[in-house]
């Protein structure tokens, strides 16, 4: 089994930027991406803030080089995956066994919603082109074809931990010597389906979200995609550019408490963080920054905070929820936040947790409030927890 898996390239798109450089600039300016709904056609416009990517479907498709009627999910995916691949600057990926492991939660639902309007009226109606790529796997296939990846592709869907699991699975494909290079991460576009779904659960904040704050009232939905190019040690040695870091730890545990709610003591989150630390051979005190799942819902932040207390007490590393910038990008969040975690190591950054005011009563710690540069950040933990009790933690370590 091959020893280490390296991160050789990064790509990201979200409400705060269309690429890595724009994200770093938005973080430094402490500028959040939420606002009124402008692209999604919904009755919740001007009522529920969301973090939309600032391009309409046609602009996104054009930027990606895809047909104008393409699902937003695929366009977002291709833009970020291509950036990651270009960033890795591997002379010829076809010299190696290369794969694409992507994640999303609702596939081409944004197009299916159009199809269903006509289909419900009359089952012989509805433009089939709009439903043809409904499946989650279709998004991955469209992007893999554009990137010229044929050796291996698959898709993972474990709700909000989806793309953390994609990165995790990709790393293991390399360790098991199935592949040499894998582009891994995830994508999700805002849809009426998810916006209304989360709205029925009454966990959306009608103001900008306040993760880990005593007075937090819910999450804001976001959209985007985040990918990294993972390479084996053998491939890393052939590259002109030094890899960003290693993926040193990972764990997937299940809360097994409730289909949507987290257990009060955060069992799943605790097991995921603890397992990832064990895998990396690190101690809690070695962690320099935690990128929290931190959705801003009373339930998640309480469970995650309790689990962190149990594992890290009494020494807490700096931590923050970058969802205070990007909103909760669901199946993309693990990929997007993994990219942020790697950038934290590369640039010595701690991201601020925007709008934080009051420490949670039950916790002896609070998130970082300001953007910090020039920090010594060597080991970063990234948390992603989802419906179905799916909890995954990743740890990235500098080389």
């Amino acid at each position, binding site marked *: 089994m091959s020893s280490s898996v390296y991160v050789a390239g990064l790509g990201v798109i979200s409400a705060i930027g269309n690429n890595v450089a724009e994200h770093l600039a938005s973080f430094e300016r402490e500028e959040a991406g939420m606002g009124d709904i402008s692209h999604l056609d919904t009755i919740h416009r001007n009522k529920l803030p969301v973090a939309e990517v600032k391009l309409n479907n046609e602009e996104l498709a054009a930027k990606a080089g895809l047909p104008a009627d393409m699902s937003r999910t695929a366009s977002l995916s291709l833009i970020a995956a291509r950036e990651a691949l270009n960033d890795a600057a591997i002379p010829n990926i076809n010299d190696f066994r290369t794969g694409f492991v992507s994640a999303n939660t609702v596939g081409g639902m944004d197009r299916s919603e159009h199809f269903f309007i006509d*289909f419900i009226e009359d089952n012989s109606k509805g433009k089939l082109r709009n439903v043809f790529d409904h499946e989650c796997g279709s998004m991955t296939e469209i992007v893999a074809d554009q990137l010229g990846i044929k050796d291996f592709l698959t*898709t993972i869907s474990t709700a909000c931990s989806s793309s953390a699991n994609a990165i995790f699975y990709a790393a293991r494909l390399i360790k098991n010597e199935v592949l040499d290079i894998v582009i891994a991460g995830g994508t999700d576009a805002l849809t009426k389906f998810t916006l209304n*779904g989360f709205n029925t659960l009454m966990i959306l904040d009608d103001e900008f979200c306040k993760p880990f704050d005593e007075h937090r009232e819910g999450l804001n939905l976001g959209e985007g995609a985040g990918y990294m190019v993972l390479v084996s040690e053998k491939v890393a040695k052939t590259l002109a550019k030094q890899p960003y870091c290693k993926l040193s730890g990972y764990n997937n545990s299940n809360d097994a408490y409730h289909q949507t709610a987290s257990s009060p003591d955060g069992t799943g989150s605790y097991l995921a963080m603890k397992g990832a630390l064990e895998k990396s051979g690190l101690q809690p005190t070695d962690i320099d920054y935690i990128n929290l799942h931190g959705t801003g819902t009373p339930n998640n932040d309480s469970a995650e905070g309790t689990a962190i207390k149990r594992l890290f007490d009494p020494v807490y590393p700096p931590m923050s929820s970058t969802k205070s910038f990007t909103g909760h990008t669901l199946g993309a969040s693990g990929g997007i936040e993994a990219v942020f975690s790697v950038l934290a190591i590369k640039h010595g950054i701690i991201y601020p947790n925007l709008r934080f005011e009051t420490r949670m009563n039950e916790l002896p710690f609070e998130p970082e409030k300001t953007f910090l540069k020039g920090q010594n950040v060597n080991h970063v933990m990234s948390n992603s927890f989802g419906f179905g009790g799916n909890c995954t933690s990743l740890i990235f370590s500098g080389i």
Partner: protein
Amino acid sequence: MKIYIRSSACISPQNTFGNENFLTGIVEYNGTRLKAIEPDYKEFADPKQLRRMSHIIKMGMAAAMECLKKGNTEMPGAIITGTAYGCLEDTVTFLTRTIEQNEELLPPTAFIQSTHNTVAAQIALMLKCHNYNNTFVHKGISFESALLDAMMLLKEQEADNILVGGTDEMTDTSFTILSRLGLYKRWPVSNLDLYATKTRGSMGGEGAAFFLLTDKASENNLAELTAIRTIYKPENLEDIEKRVESFLAENNLKIKDIDLVITGKSGDTAHDDIYEQLNVSLFNGVNLANYKHLCGEYPTSSAFALWLASNIIKNELVPETVIERNAKNTTPKRILIYNHYQKIYHSLMLVSAI
């Protein structure tokens, strides 16, 4: 390391569940769609839980529980599922209400249960299983991706007794849409004549098949899961042949060492040409079997094929209904499953006697 299939359970359009007889009393369907025969679920969950569960959740949950029971395992080391379409019934329910009720007064239950990981999550919840839990959703290789995950976990010594399953449900809506997309036959046929009709389209199908994988040898194991491979968009028939041969060679085998090839022939003339050609080229002289007349065509039907292969090996019997060609009389010790979904995703699974 050798990987064994310790137990299996399968809910399908045949009497495959809770039945000691192996594929006897084949059920004939006249139409274009095969529906799963549902067991009495009360044995597996209480009525309150069952009322909330959709068709796919019930099928997946019951197949998983039965598989654990047969493998004498209370707590699996990991739970991994593959499903191309996920929880379609709940997805369509929530989507339809969203449109019809103009996004107002929507109940949350259908949304909550629409996520693709619901089956794996419900199994974990029922067992209070905190272990590794994953769901793959990649079209015609969703189940194969899950199986590869399970095999890697065993090789990494991260877990034992891994519960892995493939499951998809066919709803009236998905059947209508997929029929419009040309996947299924336009006129009713008998599933027992599926391969003789020589028309476009297959018969729709559905089901759930679960397996318990271990690296521990035991005479109670069903079979050895020797190897698996997925192939995306092969260039042509020669490319497929080359890849099948190299897959076998990596396992120190030649095609003459294979006692039975189970192919994914679906009765769709546009897709079966690949099998027809292979059957007279690379697979020439090899015993052949088909399975889609029993379970219908769906993206995770290869899980049914693996259930079939492992039980053929365990029972030392090839059921009459699956035989396409009996070139030589042997008790199958090595079975190759070759399936393709829509000619895009091809998969190979090698199953051996223990």
